[in-house]
């Protein structure tokens, strides 16, 4: 299968007063067309920066290097026009908080139609409206006539997220990035939105990139899991349960999931903190929090290595049992 996304040695650093924040370091990732992958990690590990880098929409104070190719088109060095064509048309993206990602002073109609117009030029009004309403139908919205003319604040959180999805899909992109799509929603709505994403992925044969800190969601949605820690990919592979994971950090993430059947309901935590992202010491970034760390981990930075077909880990002592 052909790779629709190829990321090589991607590094993104934010310039701040205190120095450089290494948001992403040496990220390698290949995604095949039609695949569903999940990028997992704690807050601040670089997940969202990675999503932004895919459409070259990182902050102005960011320094980027490496390559990101979408359908063999290099993104990081691409000009404005090329980027405008790729964003929305080849890659749709939905954000964490649909309420904040929708423009408060324009109607749903205006926001869907301006996207279509930006990519397909001016269409006849009835045609535009037909497409817009069809998108609302596809995202499972009832009461479409009202919602189409409504302003974002007149919709519920779930409706807003569905509208956001409709906008993201309005120009038929092959790739859909969902950046924590359900974090701001309550549990029942979460389940509905995830079911919708699953259905859309199947119907449209989308390449889905789900960014989440919820391993449950990740395992449920994706064929392949990418685990990130402190701006690096530490593990990637087909992981569906704890024993598939080989990096101590991935294991620890599984440990965190509360067990409903357990007697004691203590919430587990990973001791310690994410390392200071402005320094880059010559040691494993997880050193200090790792339960199975050995002296070598504190003196050398592990390489990202393939351990078996379709599975790579950045660890000197991957867990195997």
């Amino acid at each position, binding site marked *: 299968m052909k790779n629709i996304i190829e990321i090589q040695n991607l590094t993104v650093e934010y310039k701040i007063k205190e120095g450089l924040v290494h948001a992403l370091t040496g990220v390698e990732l290949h995604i095949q067309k039609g695949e569903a992958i999940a990028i997992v990690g704690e807050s601040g590990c670089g997940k969202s920066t990675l999503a932004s880098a895919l459409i070259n929409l990182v902050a102005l104070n960011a320094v980027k290097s490496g390559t990101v190719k979408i359908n063999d088109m290099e993104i990081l060095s691409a000009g404005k026009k090329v980027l405008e064509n790729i964003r929305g048309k080849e890659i749709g993206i939905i954000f964490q908080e649909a309420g904040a990602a929708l423009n408060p002073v324009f109607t749903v109609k205006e926001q869907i139609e301006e*996207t279509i117009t930006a990519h397909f030029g001016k269409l006849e009004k009835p045609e535009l409206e037909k497409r817009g309403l069809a998108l609302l139908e596809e995202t499972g919205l009832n009461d479409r006539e009202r919602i189409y003319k409504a302003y974002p604040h007149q919709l519920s959180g779930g409706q807003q997220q569905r509208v956001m999805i409709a906008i993201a899909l309005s120009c038929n992109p092959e790739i859909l990035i969902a950046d924590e799509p359900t974090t701001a929603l309550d549990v029942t709505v979460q389940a509905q939105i995830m079911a919708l994403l699953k259905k859309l992925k199947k119907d449209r044969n989308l390449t889905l990139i789900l960014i989440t800190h919820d391993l449950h969601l990740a395992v449920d949605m994706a064929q392949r899991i990418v685990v990130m820690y402190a701006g690096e990919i530490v593990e990637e592979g087909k992981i569906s349960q704890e024993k598939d994971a080989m990096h101590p950090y991935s294991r620890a993430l599984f440990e965190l999931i509360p067990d409903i059947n357990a007697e004691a309901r203590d919430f587990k935590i990973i001791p310690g903190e994410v390392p200071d992202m402005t320094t880059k010491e010559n040691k494993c970034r997880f050193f200090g929090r790792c339960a199975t760390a050995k002296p070598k981990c504190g003196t050398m930075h592990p390489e990202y290595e393939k351990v078996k077909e379709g599975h790579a880990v950045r660890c000197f002592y991957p867990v195997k049992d």
Partner: protein
Amino acid sequence: MGKYVLKRLLLIFPVLIGITLITFAIIHLTPGGYTSVNMQMNIKVSPDSVARLKTLYGLDKPLHTQYLDWVSRVLRFDFGTSFIDQRPVMDKIYERLPATLLLNLISLVLIFIVGIGIGVASAVKNGGTFDKVMSVITFIGYSLPSFWLALLLMILFGVVLRWLPVSGMVSLGFDYMSPMQKIGDLILHLILPVFVTAFGGLAYISRYVKSSMVETLSQYYIKAAYAKGMPEKTVIYKSALKNSLLPVITLLGLSLPGLIGGSFIFETIFSWPGMGRLAYESALSFDYPVIMGVATIAAFLTLLGNLIADIAYALVDPRIRYR
């Protein structure tokens, strides 16, 4: 909405009563009075004639009676006649209104168009050269006392360079000019007053628009707009601009009274025959009916301006619906 407007309209009246009451009290409590200005220095005036004059204008009555008299007349849309020249106050105001409107409309339009332009341009390239230069200029514009700036400009362009007239609205012999000459003459007279009145306001509006725009551009929905592949121009001038101009509407509403009330200082400095100068002249000569007339109309328009701004805000911002 209709109910809300009605409620707000009715609320104008108690506020208006308060304002006129305070204004009335202040001008009457000010040491001196109409009779003293005209007679105190004149030894030929007998106490008798002073008393007669006071009775004539009703100034001998207790203050509250005077106020109620004034209110009852105003309710019949009669603002009285000027002490100075016995002409109806409304006539004097109508006569001065066009000059003030002309000057202030031009500067208001200038302030908002240029101010929004500068503000948006500074915000888009926040921290760039244009932004820095504009910061300095607006900072100067904001800090300079504008009457002083007016005087300096009058010296430079009126006295030293002799390019522009320094005062008045038209030249001597205006009546004998051709229509084109008349317009040209008026424009020449307008340049300095418009520039000086607009300069300070420009500084204020452009900074205000800039900060509003910078804040809007940092919003999540702007990132989302870029993410769906909208061209930068559309994002800035459509998605962001509408959001960032909402608060500016309030400022526009608040500028309305200045449009009619005029400016005491500028109109006096430039001998501009408008409302501001009328108020200033009447205040100096204790011409109570004129002062009260100008104050009442300015207060009424301020309140109306606020209301219009609120309504306009609700019309453009879908999130606001008044009850």
